[in-house]
């Protein structure tokens, strides 16, 4: 296990190194002045320019520039946003929790619906139920997410008026930002209308969560179904049946435990797709998350922000990937040998 952890740590190091190298080279690859791309300061007076060139070592070799870049990253000096002239790190700190909140609810939904439906589909794969679930999943992961979101808005917000079409909270309410996670903040806030606000936040959450959860849920259903079917063929299931265990007992004691193990890893693999979909979902539902922020930065040609957004999102994805893989290995001794 220790050996495995060390190897993972080494891999994490290499990946982060490569990522920082990519982010550094983006400063030169983006159109415009590298100094402006790194610092994000719009008006560069000659004196400031000279100072920054010295501080960023732009007159030295690329290696020394890269080391200065790493040093700045480490000390939290990620440059300014070209659009707002605010420090990028504090801007990201404001938008990142919204994305994490939305994606984690979507993951939760995909887990809650995906696993039972997958098991149901695996009970009789050729039966009606199995076929219906199969059809729905194929349709589900073919849906273009932006169109799906627009359809739901058309039906549930415009047509029926059940849910709001965008935003995190109605404009009537004001909640002080403590953690950035809306539901937690509402819980912490001392207002007389706490319950009403909570319901309002949930209504705002409903549509984006459904849209975002569609893809991971369908993938989860198929994954659980395939894993279940594979486990059901194994010899230890036959042994368990031969010992006289009932179907439910076999399912619970031997089937589920083995079939659901790879699901942990699946969460990590899903996360990267989820972040991509979250970017589109956030744009449509005007959800103030990092995806919308990043896309706005692209429209504004805000290169320092694109660079920082790429790094933050990739580090997030890599960390979640790594964590789920370690968890999976922790629970599954068979995976440790490889």
């Amino acid at each position, binding site marked *: 296990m220790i050996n495995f952890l060390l190897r993972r740590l080494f*891999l994490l190091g*290499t*990946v982060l190194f*490569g*990522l920082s190298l*990519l982010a550094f080279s*983006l400063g030169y*690859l*983006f*159109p415009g002045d590298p100094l402006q791309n790194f610092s994000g300061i719009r008006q560069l007076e000659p004196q400031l320019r000279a100072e920054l060139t010295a501080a960023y070592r732009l007159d030295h070799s690329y290696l020394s520039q890269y080391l200065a870049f790493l040093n700045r990253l480490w000390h939290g000096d990620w440059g300014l946003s070209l659009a707002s002239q605010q420090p990028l790190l504090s801007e990201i700190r404001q938008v990142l929790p919204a994305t994490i909140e939305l994606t984690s609810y979507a993951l939760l939904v995909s887990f809650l619906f995906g696993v039972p439906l997958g098991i149901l589909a695996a009970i009789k794969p050729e039966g009606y139920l199995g076929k219906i679930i199969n*059809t729905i999943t*194929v*349709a589900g*992961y*073919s*849906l*273009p*997410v*932006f*169109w799906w979101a*627009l*359809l739901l808005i*058309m039906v549930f917000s*415009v047509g029926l008026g059940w849910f709001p079409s965008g935003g995190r909270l109605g404009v009537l309410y004001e909640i002080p930002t403590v953690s950035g996670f809306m539901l937690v903040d509402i819980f912490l806030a001392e207002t007389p209308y706490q319950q009403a606000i909570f319901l309002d936040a949930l209504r705002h959450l409903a549509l984006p969560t459904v849209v975002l959860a569609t893809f991971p849920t369908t993938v989860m259903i198929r994954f659980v179904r395939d894993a279940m079917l594979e486990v059901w063929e194994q010899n230890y299931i036959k042994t368990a049946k031969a010992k006289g265990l009932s179907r439910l007992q076999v399912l619970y004691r031997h089937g589920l435990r083995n079939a659901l193990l790879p699901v942990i890893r699946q969460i990590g693999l899903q996360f*990267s*797709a989820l*972040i*991509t979909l979250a*970017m*589109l979902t956030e*744009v449509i539902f005007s959800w103030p998350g990092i995806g919308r922020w*990043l*896309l706005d930065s*692209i429209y504004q040609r805000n*290169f320092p922000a*694109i660079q920082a957004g*790429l790094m933050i*999102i*990739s580090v997030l*994805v*890599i960390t979640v*990937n790594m964590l789920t893989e370690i968890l999976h290995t922790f629970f599954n001794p068979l995976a440790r040998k490889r």
Partner: protein
Amino acid sequence: MRKFRLYFEEQHRSPLAQLWREFARQHSALFGLALFSSFLLLSLVAPFITPHDPYLQADNLLLLPPSWSEQGLVQYPFGTDDLGRDLLSRLLKGTTFTFGLALVTVIGALLAGLALGALAGMSQGMKSSFFNHLLDLILTIPSLLLAIIIVAVLGPGLANTAWAVSLALLPQFVHGIRNAINEQLKKDYVTAYRLDGANNWQVLTRLIIPNIWEKIIVMSSMALSTAILDIAALGFLSLGAQAPIPEWGAMISDSLDLIYLAPASVAIPGLLIFAAVLSVNLVGDGLKTAMQRRRES
């Protein structure tokens, strides 16, 4: 037909015929194949069969409703957009941009991935482990994010979208092909062929590629559905195809502000994207199931 068979003959179908037999048994897969072929045909002949010029702005026919409503005209089955351009012609033309371009990017990524994957799969030691780490890095970045970054560097446009999407698809091709090659290299028949004096090139071209091409097709079908979705998504974010080009995703974002007036102009392009991706997924799924059943039989 002969009534009697004098000798007992065992009939062996070729693997390809067996695959087709298992594939044709699945109705959904056949339906997907028919849909896929019609999209393929449309993307080739679309410029010649459009009833109107997709770029022609008929300013006396702005925002014509579809022909099934009272005010519609039968010459314009899906109506016109806010500039008076025929929606059907634009949709037909759009097949070339969304579906055809996705196909081209996947083929490009596949060829490059085959070369790099073979290089990575056949080499051992330092070179391959360096490659692994590089791929692990790129695979962690979501493909649409990678495409967005590439578009941000190159600038928006349809050609740049194609480059960005095929570059973003490349890592998963290399990864998949390298794994498939590694799996084959462990088998005994490769060792036997090597003992006969075959070199790396002969092993690759005569043994490995014929044995993994079905896997490669399944991989390509998954990549194709990603490519269609990514091209449409980039068009929707107006980072891909620019204004007059009738790419389906761009058409949705163009008519987004008309969604109350003309919901069909948002619904129909989206439906086409959905149908295109669905057809690809059905074919890919059918192939996967057919391959699995052939192995079992």
